[in-house]
């Protein structure tokens, strides 16, 4: 039994990577094959991630030794509760987005190239999540990023290319900083294995180098995670991508490459003490500045993109509190944000698909013609705005209470301000897109095809039921144990070495 469990881990990377290249080879010859392959892979990975929840909760983290070599010399993949938590989020959203893309991407030529890049990005994200090796983290991060540069430019219009170029330049700078940080850490600890590195760092204490490396990582992963003041690329890049990709970028990529990597590196490897106050301050600034930028936008997708910055701020604020409640709230918000933000981007895609417009001022009254898109976007808006009974309410509630509980009522007040502004800007979206007068020229529009509707309804159902994750019987093995993993910090190293024996 345990044999199967261990070999499952590399599949999260190997499967999408292989199929990605397979699609590149075959996709142009047989039209339907890329649709089918991608859906099958996404479904398989989704089921596998659910299976992983059950497996990982049993014992400590599962460690897979690449080529049978023992760490720290060999490279290993580690599956602990936090990784499983992230894997479920990533692979569920990927499956839903894939189903959505089957219809949506018909608008573009070269659909098979899209799927190839899409799976490459998935491989990168899964890799970042399961890797137990610092350098591999960087490699997977770059795989994911490079695929996303391509996907942002997928429409190859002027605007998209420009956005992709900016994203690429800034992303590369961030990548260099991360690489520099890893290099310095390697010279300091003489190991690249995360668990080993954590042990060495905790033994040798009080070096200035760790502070410098922390800044490099903050700057690097902070950019990937669109944390203020490293968010500049996001408002251009996310709206430019095709809607399914926007959903992936906002819902997953910034979290897997940014937030998850930050948590992993700071909590599990470096020890979080210096990181916490910075995360709180930057998180709060992202939260507030992002939402104020969003409220003035008239482009549907750009508005959503700014909200991603704001919502990442919430996540960082919660995690930056460092208390068990705060971390729980932050991770829960990460889960919820993935769900509702992906849904919102899919909604914007549906609107774009049906009307060809993303300009809020041009739209209006679409609920008459697109009831499914309208009601699912209503659910998503309520979720992101933090209205009960939807999932966003619960995580915001926990974060605010955790802030006050930890003795930071001022941060809580900022979270409230941002929450009100979030509500305001999504009420604006609802008013201008779905309520209001139906424009003459949109009289003939139709609801989007079934697959797209299915994806949106599915995500809306998750948004509606997401609060159940707080019920102890449901969350014990999933959310709660992920939060415990984060809170345990550098216990990670011990756990990994224990399960190696």
């Amino acid at each position, binding site marked *: 039994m345990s044999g199967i469990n261990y070999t499952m881990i590399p599949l999260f990377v190997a499967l999408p990577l292989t199929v990605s290249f397979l699609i590149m080879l075959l996709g142009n010859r047989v039209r339907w094959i890329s649709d089918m392959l991608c859906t099958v892979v996404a479904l398989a990975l989704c089921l596998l991630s659910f299976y992983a929840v059950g497996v990982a909760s049993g014992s400590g983290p599962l460690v897979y030794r690449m080529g049978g070599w023992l760490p720290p010399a060999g490279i290993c993949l580690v599956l602990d509760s936090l990784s499983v938590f992230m894997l479920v989020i990533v692979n569920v959203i990927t499956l839903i987005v894939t189903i959505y893309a089957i219809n949506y991407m018909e608008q573009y030529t070269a659909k098979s190239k899209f799927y190839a890049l899409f799976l490459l990005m998935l491989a990168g994200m899964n890799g970042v999540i399961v890797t137990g090796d610092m350098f591999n983290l960087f490699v997977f991060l770059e795989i994911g990023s490079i695929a996303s540069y391509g996907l942002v430019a997928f429409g190859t219009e002027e605007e998209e290319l420009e956005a992709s170029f900016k994203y690429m*330049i800034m992303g590369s700078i961030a990548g260099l900083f991360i690489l520099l940080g890893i290099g310095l850490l390697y010279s300091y600890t003489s190991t690249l294995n995360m668990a080993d590195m954590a042990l060495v760092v905790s033994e040798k204490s009080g070096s200035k180098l760790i*502070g410098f490396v922390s800044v490099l990582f903050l700057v690097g992963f902070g950019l990937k995670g669109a944390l203020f003041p490293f968010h*500049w690329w996001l408002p251009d890049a996310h709206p430019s991508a095709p809607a399914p990709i926007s959903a992936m970028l906002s819902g997953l990529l910034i979290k897997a490459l940014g937030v998850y990597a930050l948590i992993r590196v700071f909590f599990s490897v470096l020890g979080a003490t210096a990181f916490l106050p*910075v995360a709180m301050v930057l998180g709060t600034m992202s939260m507030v500045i992002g939402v104020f930028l969003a*409220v003035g936008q008239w482009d549907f997708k750009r508005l959503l993109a700014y909200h991603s910055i704001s919502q990442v701020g919430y996540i960082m604020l919660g995690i930056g509190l460092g208390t068990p409640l705060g971390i729980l709230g932050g991770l829960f918000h990460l889960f919820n944000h993935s769900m509702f933000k992906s849904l919102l981007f899919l909604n914007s895609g549906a609107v774009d698909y049906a009307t060809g417009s993303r300009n809020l001022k041009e739209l209006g009254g679409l609920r008459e013609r697109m009831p499914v898109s309208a009601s699912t976007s209503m659910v998503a808006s309520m979720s992101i705005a933090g209205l009960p009974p939807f999932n966003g309410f619960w995580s915001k509630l926990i974060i605010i209470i955790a802030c006050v509980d930890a003795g930071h*009522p001022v941060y*809580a007040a900022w979270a*409230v301000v941002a929450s009100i502004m979030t*509500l305001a800007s999504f009420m604006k979206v609802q008013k201008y897109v779905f309520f209001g007068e*139906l424009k003459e020229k949109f009289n003939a529009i139709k609801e989007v095809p079934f697959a797209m509707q299915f994806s949106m309804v599915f995500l809306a159902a998750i948004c509606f039921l997401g609060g159940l994750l707080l019920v102890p019987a449901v969350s014990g093995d999933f959310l709660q144990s992920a939060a415990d993993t984060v809170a345990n910090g550098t216990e990670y190293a011990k756990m990994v070495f224990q399960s190696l024996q």
Partner: protein
Amino acid sequence: MNELIAQSNMLLTDLSAQPMVLLIAVPLFAGIVCRFLPSKGGAVAAVIAFLTGIYAFLIAWPLFNAKAAAFSHHNWLALRLDGINGFILLATTVFSLLILIYSFGFMKGKDRQNHYYAYILWTLGASCGALLASEFILLLVFWGILGVTLYLLTGISGPEAAGAAKKAAIVIGGSDSILILGIALLWVIRHTTRMQGAPVEFGGPLSYIAFFCLATAAFAKAGAMPFHSWVPDCGEKAPASVAAFLPASLDKLLGIYFLYRTTTLFTMNSGVTTALAVIGAGTIIFAVMMALVQHDLKRLLSYHAVSQVGYMVLGISTGTPLGIAGSLFHMLNHAMYKSCLFLCAGAIEHRTGTSDLDKLGGLAKAMPVTLFSCIIASMAISGIPPLNGFASKWMIYQGIIESGRSGGVLWVVWLTAAMVGSALTLASFVKLLHASFFRQPSPEVAAAKPREVGPGMWLPMGFLALLCVAFGLRYLSPLSRFIFPAVNAPVSFTGKWFVGPATVMIAGALFGGLLLYLLGTVKKPRVCRTYIGGEYLDEVYISGSEKSTARDVEVTGVDFYQTIRDMTPFKQIYTMAQWKLFDLYEVGTHVSFFISKIFQFFHTGVLRQYISWYVIGMIILLWLMK
């Protein structure tokens, strides 16, 4: 997994034996059923909703009689019935039932009926939940759901209501966020989220902030200033039945209930009560002044719905048992007459197609039941004895006077504000009654050939009007049944009010007036053609090429406030109100767009600048983490 299923099974059996849980869960569930009915199933939805309404009433009645009940599960699902929420619960179900009956006629033939009934039922379930919750987090959930249903119900009347729905959602939803903060702060102070327990002494800024955060939620829900601005928009644009249901009755019940609940959690001091009194008195005067100048029937009523909240807040701020009892009684009375008024407005709109006072007129003969209900309710809201509005206002006045005994002179100001507000209320209702019922009918109204609405619609109106009379004449019996148990101290009247002799005297005076009128003029009226400036009216042309009618030369009641409007302090205030300076929502919108502009200024899209900012950010971090 099996364990989980077994657990939830047990939970379900546990819960379904609880009438309090059923009262919440059944309407919510019935709402879901209605929501997913096909859009043609409006009639089915109406029947389901009606049956659910009756069911809720049948549960609420024994609950109210039981006086006390408590239930808790896993510590967080805690419900509790006591003297305070019992009668409000009963009132909630009664109002829901009346609105559902009214909606049969009112919603007939309109779009999205299944949605409408679903939202009404969700509102009912969530209101019961919010009332019964004895755990703050639970309250918060239901409170938030009420915001959502308010948004959905307001938006149901079509594109023109989109703005009003948005505004209501932002104000109410925003206050929910503030409520979360208040609850969190209170938790840190009290280490419990139970809504009962020893009151907190004020001390340190956190306790004050916590109190005002909670009060903000109550104010926003009830529509007290400065969080009132969603009420007029919502009342004007939402369907009349929704306006009668939410801003007029349920939101008041819930808001004032929560305000009262909050005050029981704190040991009030004079600073806080003065702040409440300022809000109360300010709300009364400002909103009634705004009501005076309105030209839309429903908007005028909405401003009164704001103004009346002022009385309730003022009553609570007195801190005396009499004042608080008066306030709670006023809350109940207000829900009756204001619902009645909105239902009348709905009936008028239903038959004439407009709620613009300038376009109405002459409905007295056509709609006698509406007229009757409207007059009763108007007199009740203006505080004319012996109707219920007077009884509760009288108690609030006495409460204010009694609070003055402990020193201070400010109570004179509050009392004056309350009395002036009452007079101005009467003035604006004279305008309303005249403009819609008594003046000459406008061409539009004449063309619409108005007639009385069906019994489904006039029954709730008439019932509420009779209730206003009954609660006024026999005010002691509702007081002792509903209100006194809610106030944890013996209530004693300082002033005396003998309803019997007074009624006889008032009736006598009215009869005498009528007699004089009949004797003096009706006997031998001189009938002639209407003339103006020596010429017969139907021969002169006043407006354009149309022949003038009696309506054109009539002294209208609609514009009589113009003199007030042009007086010096008021003129400036009205101008400021026109700029929406008093509307927190509008001001907030401008401020946030301004801030947004500042931030957007830095997002130029130029890569070089972005990289510079990036590096600057890094340098700051390096400096901070050195």
